[in-house]
C-alpha cells in the first residue's frame, strides 16, 4: 500500500488532489462529495427537473421550428376531473394500509432474526429471506398469478378438500394486489428494522426481565422505542415504493383498484402529446408523497425527542 502511495505521488493529478485535500476542511468535503453529488444530480435531480419543465409545456415534444408554450393547464386538469382525485386518494390509502400491514408482517421476522436466532445463523436467515428478491418483480407477480388464479394452486387445494363455493376469486382484486405488494416490499422493511433491532443491547432486555417486566411491557417500553428509527425508515421506504408502483398493480390488480401511478402510466402510454399532463401528475404525486412521508417522519421524531 505504501509503495502504491509513493508511486501515485509521482503523478501531478494525484499530488494536486492531495494538496487540495490538505488545504481546508471545506476542500476535503468538496473532494469527498463531488462524485456522489454529480451522481445524484445526473441521475435523480436532472430527470426530475426535466419532468418539471415538461409539465409546464403546452405540448411535448416541441415541434421543429416552434417555440415551447408555457401553461398551468396540465396541473389544473388534475383538479378539473374528480376521477383523478379518486385514484390519487385510493393510492394514498392503499399505500398507507400496505405499509402498516408490511410492518406487522415483517416486524416479528426481523425480531426473530435479530434477537432470537443464534448469532451464527443470522446471516443465513437473512440470506434466506433476501433470496426471492434476486428474482424480478414481474416474475414474482406471475408466480402469484399461478398461485391465485381460478385454476391455480390455492383454488386447486380448495377443490381438493371439497370446500364449497370454489373457485374463490382471489386474483385481480385488492387481496391479490395487497399480498403481492407486501411480498415485494418486505425486504425494504426488513433491513432497516433488523439494523435497528440488532443494535438493542440484550442486557437492557435481561435487566427489565429480571426486574419483573413481562414480555409485552419489555416490547412496548424497550423494543419499540429503541427500534423507532428502523420503523420510520422502513415505513418511509415502503410507502414511497408502493405509491409509485406500476407493473405489479397492472398484473395483479383489477378494475376496482387502479392506482394513480397506473393512471399516470396510461397517460404516458397514449400515442400523442400527453407527456406534459403525465409529467404534471407525476410531480403532483411525488410532491404529495414526499410531504406525506415528511410529516410522518417529523411526527415520530418529535415524539421520540419528547420522550427522550
Amino acid at each position, binding site marked *: 500500500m505504501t509503495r502504491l502511495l509513493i508511486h501515485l505521488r509521482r503523478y501531478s493529478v494525484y499530488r494536486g488532489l492531495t494538496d487540495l485535500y490538505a488545504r481546508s476542511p471545506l476542500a476535503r468535503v468538496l473532494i469527498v462529495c463531488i462524485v456522489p453529488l454529480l451522481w445524484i444530480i445526473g441521475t435523480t435531480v436532472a430527470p426530475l427537473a426535466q419532468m418539471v419543465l415538461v409539465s409546464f409545456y403546452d405540448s*411535448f415534444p416541441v415541434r421543429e421550428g416552434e417555440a415551447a408554450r408555457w401553461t398551468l393547464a396540465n396541473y389544473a386538469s388534475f383538479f378539473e376531473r374528480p*376521477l383523478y382525485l379518486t385514484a390519487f386518494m385510493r393510492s394514498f390509502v392503499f399505500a398507507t394500509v400496505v405499509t402498516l400491514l408490511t410492518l406487522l408482517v415483517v416486524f416479528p421476522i426481523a425480531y426473530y432474526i435479530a434477537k432470537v436466532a443464534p448469532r451464527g445463523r443470522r446471516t443465513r436467515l437473512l440470506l434466506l429471506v433476501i433470496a426471492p428478491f434476486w428474482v424480478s418483480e414481474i416474475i414474482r407477480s406471475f408466480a402469484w398469478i399461478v398461485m391465485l*388464479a381460478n385454476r*391455480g394452486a390455492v383454488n386447486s387445494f380448495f377443490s381438493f378438500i371439497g370446500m364449497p363455493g370454489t373457485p374463490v376469486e382471489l386474483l385481480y382484486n385488492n387481496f391479490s394486489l395487497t399480498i403481492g405488494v407486501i411480498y415485494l416490499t418486505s425486504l425494504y422493511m426488513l433491513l432497516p428494522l433488523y439494523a435497528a433491532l440488532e443494535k438493542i443491547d440484550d442486557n437492557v432486555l435481561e435487566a427489565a426481565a429480571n426486574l419483573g417486566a413481562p414480555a409485552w411491557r419489555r416490547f412496548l417500553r424497550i423494543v419499540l422505542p429503541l427500534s423507532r428509527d428502523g420503523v420510520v425508515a422502513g415505513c418511509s421506504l415502503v410507502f414511497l415504493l408502493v405509491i409509485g408502483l406500476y407493473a405489479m398493480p*397492472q398484473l395483479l390488480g383489477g378494475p*376496482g383498484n387502479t392506482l394513480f401511478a397506473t393512471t399516470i402510466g396510461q397517460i404516458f402510454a397514449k*400515442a400523442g402529446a400527453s407527456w406534459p399532463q403525465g409529467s404534471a401528475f407525476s410531480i403532483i404525486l411525488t410532491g404529495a408523497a414526499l410531504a406525506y412521508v415528511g410529516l410522518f417522519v417529523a411526527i415520530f421524531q418529535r415524539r421520540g425527542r419528547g420522550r427522550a
Partner: protein
Amino acid sequence: MTFKPTRRTVLTGMGIAGVAGLCAPGLIRPARAASGELNIWAYDGFITDAFRRRFEDETGIRLNIRTVTDQGEQFNLMAAEDGKFSADIVTCAGHRFYQFIDAGFLAPIDRAKLGNWNRIEDEYASASWVSRSGEQWGVPLVVVSTGLLYNTEEIEAPESWDVMFNEANAGRTAYQIQDFFQIAMNYLGYDGSAASYMNTPDVAQRAVDATRDFLIEHKHMVRRYYEAATEIQQMMVTGDVALAQAGSGPSSQLIIDGFPAAYTIPREGGLAYAYGFNITKDAANMENAYTFLNALLADAENGAEIVRSTGLSSTIKGTEALLTDQEKEALALSAEERSRLSWVDVETAPFIFDLIDKAAEEIRAA
C-alpha cells in the same frame, strides 16, 4: 521492443477514449447504417424465425428486432428519439398511423422501390388506411378483427354483446378499454366510428360520455382490463374469465391449441383493422428496408408463417391456399359475421380516439 506506458501515454490514451466515448452515439449510427443491418420494431410473431433465417442468409442483412406491444409505446419511443430514429421499420396499426405521420415520424412508401407491392391482396393495397395526404405510408401485413371470445364449456354461443353486461356473468369478463369502447358505443346505439359526428363534436362528446358512464356503471362485472392482446389467452387458460372482447389473433391461437373456446362477431358488430410495416423518416438503412419488404411480400409462404405465429389473417396473396383445414377453420368467420365487421375509419379516428382515450382514463380511474 517492449511498450512501457508513461504518464503522458496513459493520460493521452484516457483522453482519446473519453472523446471516443462521447462521440459514440454519432459514430455508431452511421456505422450501423453502413453495416448491412436493419432495425425493426415489430409485434411478437410478425417476423418469424424461419423468414428471418432465410432473409439473413440470402441477403446478408442482419435483422435487429425489438418486440413491441403497443402503438403508444412506439410513438413515445420515437418522440424521445427526436428525429434520430433507431428503428428503420416500425409496426403501425391502420387506424393509429395518422398520429405517426402527423408527428413526422414516417416516410412515404416509394412504390418504384417496392416491386412486390402487387403481391398484396387488392382490397388491402388500395384501402383508405394505407393512404394519407395523397401518399402511401406503409405495407399492410396482417388483418385483425375484434370480436367476442368465449369459453364453450361455460357459455352458450352468444349472439349479442348483451352477455358482457349480464349480471350472471359478473366477474367473468375482460376487455381492452380503448378497443371495446367503439363496440360499446355501437351496442348502445351510437355511432362507434364517429363518421356521423364529424361536424357535430358536441354530439360525439355526449355519445362518448354516455358510453363511458355505462361502462363505469358496469365496472363491477369486469374481472380485468387487459393491455397486451395475448394476456387474454392466459386469463382464459387460468379460468379467471370466460368471456372477453378479444382480437382474432389470440383467439385463433387459443382455438388451434385445442382450448374449448370460440370466437364470434355478435350482431351489434365488431371492428376490423390492419397492422403494417412502416419505414421511418430518414431511416438509416432505407435500402435495406425496401429489400426486406420486397422479400417479405415475395412468397405466400411468408404470409402462412405469420398466420401460424400470430393467428391473424395475412394480406399476402395466395396465403390461404397454404393453410391447413384446422387453421382455416380457426381463422374463418361466416359471411354473416364478416358483414358485421366495420373498418376503423382512418379519417374520423383522430377525432374519436382523442375522446375515447380520455374516457378510458376516467373508466380506469373510477
